[in-house]
């Protein structure tokens, strides 16, 4: 296993959490709004600490927010 592509449901989880804005989420987990934008676009993989903070805010397990999308370029089936 050389490379993992990690996807996320942050946008969907925000929507489910009373359509929470990126700014509100950023304030809730103490990061900048740009960091939330980067996570949603898949441009930044957050630290484990931030993953758990997001899980606490969304009140859902971490694996419901972050998931493995590809392993070595091959799509992972649900």
């Amino acid at each position, binding site marked *: 296993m050389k490379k993992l592509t990690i996807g996320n449901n942050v946008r969907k989880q925000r929507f489910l959490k009373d359509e929470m804005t990126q*700014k509100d989420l*950023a304030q809730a987990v*103490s*990061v*900048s*709004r*740009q*960091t939330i934008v*980067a996570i949603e*676009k*898949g*441009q*930044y*993989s*957050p*630290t484990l*600490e*931030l993953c758990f903070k997001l899980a606490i805010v969304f009140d859902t397990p971490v694996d419901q927010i972050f998931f493995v999308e590809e392993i070595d370029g091959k799509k992972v089936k649900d």
Partner: protein
Amino acid sequence: MSYQEKKGITNIISSILITTIYSIVIYQKYLNGLLDDENIFRFWAIIVLIFIPISIVARIIIMIIFHIVESIVQTAKGNDIEDELSSLDERDRIFNMKASSTAMYIFSLGFIIALATQLFDVSNHIFFIVIMVAGFLTDLVSELMMIRYYRRGF
């Protein structure tokens, strides 16, 4: 373009501007065909010790102007400037760390090249000039890498 990318570009422009102007002034004042091999360390100590405060003050002024312009532009667009000016978070710190790491390699390479020049029959001034150029390139590469990370992600 994000706030961080604009800030990086402003840092690059200010770095080029400050270093170029200072180099031209120093060249015209001291180095224009009048290289003196006596008191080299004192000479370069003066140049560097004057450059540091000038560079810091000039950068602060440029960043203040940048923030004022950015605030005006973002307010005119109806965006919240507070969103952009938030403090450093984990992403900023990781990007900073990665850029600093690369910058350190470049400066180390510059230092080795500066030492290597002393193996040849060249003026000791070359040693300090190479160190200064390495420092300048280190700053530029560090900012470019930060812009790249903010643009492409990591």
